[in-house]
């Protein structure tokens, strides 16, 4: 049984068909990146897994169960961080644990662990507006990781960060994915980010939104041990350049269709 399954999923907004006939099976602990032109329904697809939106055709299942509502088994990391501005870093990270009724001592231990892991030491009692964008997104990542969800959904999580911070965060995400493998659905506009992070890349087309091609990166990644290298080293590898060009051409052909 796959972690996430889309069965002939379609979504209409009135007469407008946003997504048509999307089928995809995401394996347990697999990192999937979704790329596609704007308006191809990437975010809608993700929101259907989160239970924030629902298909008008077909169905979406997580661990075999049809998604009917949002739940802490499917945490989302948003592009705009979406931290509670009136809560400290510690309280924001512990938010999901409070919701699920985790005991205070256990919560403290887990939150402390993630504060350390995300290099947020010394900022535990700061408010989000006192932190840089990169640190705020670390808090958001910690908030999602700490509740130990089956599925992590990331909607362009590094889209609002500057280029340098983005690179650092991408490396951290690779480290996180290596140390605590999770099923991840990662939406991005960046082809490089997709090739660097994902096991498989889903390239979407639009009008209506659909899957055009799925590219497997996992074999190259494991055989060349990308996860042991820094992002700049990986980006110089011929295999990386080759994959990046391939994904970029596919994406470009979807955009030229307009």
């Amino acid at each position, binding site marked *: 049984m796959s972690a996430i399954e889309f069965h002939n999923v379609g979504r209409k907004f009135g007469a407008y068909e946003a997504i048509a006939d999307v089928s995809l099976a995401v394996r347990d602990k697999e990192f999937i990146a979704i790329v596609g032109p704007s308006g191809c329904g990437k975010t809608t697809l993700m929101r259907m897994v989160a*239970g924030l939106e629902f298909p008008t055709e077909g169905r979406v299942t997580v661990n075999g169960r049809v998604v009917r509502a949002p739940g802490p088994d499917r945490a*989302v990391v948003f592009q*705009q961080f979406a931290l*509670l501005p009136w809560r400290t870093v510690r309280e924001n990270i512990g938010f*999901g644990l409070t*919701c699920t009724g985790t005991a205070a001592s256990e919560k403290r231990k887990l939150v402390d662990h993630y504060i350390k892991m995300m290099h947020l030491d010394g900022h535990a009692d700061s408010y989000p507006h006192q932190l840089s964008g990169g640190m705020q997104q670390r808090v958001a990542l910690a908030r999602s990781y700490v509740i130990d969800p089956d599925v992590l959904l990331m909607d362009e999580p590094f889209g609002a960060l500057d280029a340098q911070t983005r690179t650092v965060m991408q490396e951290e995400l690779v480290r996180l994915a290596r140390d605590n493998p999770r099923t991840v659905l990662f939406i991005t506009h960046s082809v490089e980010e997709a090739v660097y992070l994902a096991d498989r890349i889903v390239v979407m087309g639009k009008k209506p939104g659909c899957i055009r091609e799925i590219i497997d990166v996992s074999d190259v990644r494991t055989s060349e041990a990308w996860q042991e290298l820094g992002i700049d080293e990986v980006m110089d590898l011929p295999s990386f350049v080759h994959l990046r060009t391939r994904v970029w051409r596919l994406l470009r052909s979807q955009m030229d269709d307009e």
Partner: protein
Amino acid sequence: MTDNVAGGGDAAGMNIRRYLPQRRTLISLAGLVIVLCLWAVVTMGLKLVSPVRFPSPLDTWSAARQLIFTGYGGGLLWEQVWHSSRLVLLGFAVAASSGVALGIIMGISRRAQLFINPTFLLLRPIPPLAWIPLAILWFGLGDTSKIFVIWYAAFVPCVLNTLAGIRTVDKTLIAAARVHGASPGRVLREVQLPGALPMVFTGLRLSLQACWTTLVAAELVGAFFGIGRVLVIAGQDIYPGMILVAMLCVAALGAGMTKVLTVIEQRLLAWRFA
């Protein structure tokens, strides 16, 4: 061009930093003192305004002493102030609690909003003072009718601002709370209410102002006690010093209560200043 703009911004920032708190208080006090001096010069020094039309600081001072020590319009200063403040506080408390509650209900439920809105839109344009005759008919000339009119005046801004506050809470924050396991009740407590709080306080401030406006008007129409009563009697007696004292009382009480509200707001929104 860009450099100029950036430079200008920096200079403005420097200006703000230069005014330290003590210095700011000093400048504000200086403004007040100058207004007082101008007042004294115009009424006592140059005698530009006849004391029958506008009282001098000395006339006002003696009227204030009379109100404090011997009383006027049926009571001493503290009795009149207490009477009016009590009505404002009661009316405000009822209006704030019912208004914020209704604003929350309309904010979280589209159905409730659709249900209530027509009635609300119909009642809203009626000025609070237009309710006075009906209020007197229902509740008599006593306090209850005044509390009713104050409640009506203060209720509307509370409802509207709370509603707007709840509606303008970032949808992504609500989604983020839900996907991390928050129940609808927790979303309301942890996200929607704190998010709406700044606008709720805007509503409360407007509402408090409306309370004082309405109270004084209601007391002018008919009252046995209160600041408005002092104003009416002083008007009948052609006693400009006392009229001004009563007006200053309203100003001081209004400003004082608004200050208390601001302090509470700053406590509750302390995270913003961290």
